């Protein structure tokens, strides 16, 4: 059954890709939920994560000296830490002064931050593609019938899903998570209930970039090469995923990301490789036409 195996191939590919989109989408959706701001620089933070991982694993050669599991674990911790620091600084410098002003001013400030970061990355690491070492992870491929499943694909998917599960628990089971959800629903009311919204915003700007940075590292490990403007396309797609799931909705971002990854992989397998991005955006538009607030977000009456 070669057809079925091809389907499984695309399915597993789509799930892994989708889990990466979902990780990035979470950063968009959490920031949007609390601040009603599209963080256009989020894609660049993701790229920053990829490049920091590249520096640690390839330039510093952690992969060779420590052995794969320890090296990747250590670089994940460092990348996550550094990128969330960058996220915090971004909020402090580019967004906090604009908190009370017009939405469009904040959008342009976000675009400015995005242009700044993208060019900073280019100046620091160069405009050419950078390759992660192929020997980073053992090149194991599982053969199940005629269906090939590379180990790295499984690991990336498992890592992304584990992080998302942890986030889900954090958001739904802890007081801080409750504060995030409250601030996302109604900042003013949350303030009245004693939620420190400022703290929530900082928290969101630490968690979001942390997930984005992790996604960057995973993309580097999974695809083996990175580019300074990768943040733009991934960011756009992840944001699409967040919208599809209903922006501001954390579960929605995960579902939207996975859905988008599947859609892309199946579209590329069964319809056309060159049209896959167009298909993605077309589906986005159709979803918004029929469900203007995304798939998971409840319809709410327009506030007057």
């Amino acid at each position, binding site marked *: 059954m070669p057809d079925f195996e091809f389907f499984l191939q695309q399915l597993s590919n789509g799930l892994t890709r989708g889990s990466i989109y979902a990780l990035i989408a979470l950063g968009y959706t959490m920031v949007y939920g609390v601040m009603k701001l599209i963080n256009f620089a989020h894609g660049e933070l993701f790229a920053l994560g990829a490049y920091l991982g590249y520096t640690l694993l390839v330039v510093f050669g952690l992969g060779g000296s420590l052995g794969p599991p320890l090296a990747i674990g250590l670089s994940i911790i460092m990348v996550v830490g550094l990128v969330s620091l960058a996220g915090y600084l971004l909020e402090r410098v580019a967004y906090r002064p604009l908190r009370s002003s017009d939405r469009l001013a904040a959008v*342009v400030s976000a675009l400015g931050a995005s242009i700044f970061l993208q060019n900073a990355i280019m100046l620091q690491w160069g405009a050419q593609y950078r390759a992660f070492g192929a020997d980073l992870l053992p090149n194991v491929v599982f053969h199940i019938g005629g269906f090939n499943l590379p180990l790295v694909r499984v690991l990336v998917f498992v890592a992304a899903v584990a992080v998302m599960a942890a986030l889900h628990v954090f958001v739904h089971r802890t007081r801080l998570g409750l504060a995030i959800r409250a601030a996302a629903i109604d900042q003013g009311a949350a303030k009245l209930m004693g939620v420190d919204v400022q703290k929530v915003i900082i928290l969101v700007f630490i968690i979001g970039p942390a997930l984005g940075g992790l996604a960057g590292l995973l993309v580097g490990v999974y695809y083996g090469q990175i580019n300074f403007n990768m943040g733009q396309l991934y960011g756009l797609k992840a944001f699409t995923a967040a919208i599809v799931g209903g922006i501001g909705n954390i579960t929605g971002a995960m579902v939207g990301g996975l859905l988008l990854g599947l859609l892309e992989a199946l579209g590329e397998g069964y319809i056309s490789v060159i049209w896959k991005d167009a298909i993605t955006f077309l589906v986005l538009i159709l979803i*918004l036409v029929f469900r203007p607030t995304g798939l998971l977000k409840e319809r709410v009456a327009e506030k007057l």
Partner: protein
Amino acid sequence: MSFASASRRKSFGSALTVAAVFVFACLPFLLGHLAGSSAPYWLDVLNTVGLYAILALSLNIILGHAGLFHMGHAAFFAVGAYVSAILNLTFDWPIMATIPAAALAAGLLAGLVAWPVVHLSGDYLLIVTIGIVEIVRIALTNDIFGLTGGPNGLVGISRPEIMGFRLTRPQHFFYLIWGLVAVSVLLFDWLERSRFGRALKYIREDVVAAESMGVNTNKYKILAFVIGAAWAGLAGTVYASRMRTISPESFNFTESVFLFIIVILGGRGNQKGVLLGSFLVMGLPEIFRGFENKRLLVFGAALVIMMIFRPGGLLPARSPGYKLPEPYRSRYKRLPDLSSGGVFNGAGSRANGPNASASEGFASGQAAAPSSGSGESSDSSKVISVDVGQDLVK
């Protein structure tokens, strides 16, 4: 009930404008003397600025006046350029004759895509328009209908000919492009003052209030898209004939972002601001060519700083409240007290929204150009809101 008094320009101001236009029109000659051999280069820069000014002015209708978050203007620009190029190359139309077709095609596409999505609010519309510009770019890259030439685009588009005169050199295009900028300014200025323009402003300030006053908001929003897009299509024709070769990469998401930035940075809804924005975004980086690739780094940082210090743009639009003619002003002044009355609570609280933003925009406007009597305008806008509320209650 038009309270919009045709703004009486002071004669000094208009004289200054005439002088500035005159000096600008002489620029090709002045540059020839001042810059010597690099004059054509600077003229080219000015032409690019002008082209983006036309595009940004057309985007301003959608983004500035109607307040619709539209980040996909490059799509309509692309359609105009490609329609012109295809008609010119495949069907041998003279390039200037393709302008109506280009504008029509871009406008049609805009109407078609705006119609189902125009009811979306703010950021959802933003992401849809980004999706549209990506779809158009991918379609062009994939040689849709076998006409667009794929990733390499189309080559060998003919030069424009106006009454037998072929435009070839930068200074020829300078007059074509900046002439079109002038036409755009006049056209959009007229549109802004028309019933259509007032409807758009109303939609921007409060879409619910506009609708309840009987403004067909969807119709006007779609119209804004169609008009803005058609004008961008025209700019596409000019672009195609100036560059002679076009490719999908000239119309990507980044171009849309830059147009968006021009309008917001300059001052949305204000044509002077948009023109200034075009110079700053497209012209100024050319002056700093010496910094090579650090230019964009600085540009990004500058954007953040600009927005922090001037969130309404460099030249914010005038307060949306219309200034009442003098005899009415004193008469209506007593009315605001009513807004605290119980009857108006509902309408009053809604009127607060636009008023708050109006006075905010106004405050920064005052900082830029303190003008006599402008203190009244925010007052009177309040009066009108109350007036509207009164009508509603009746």
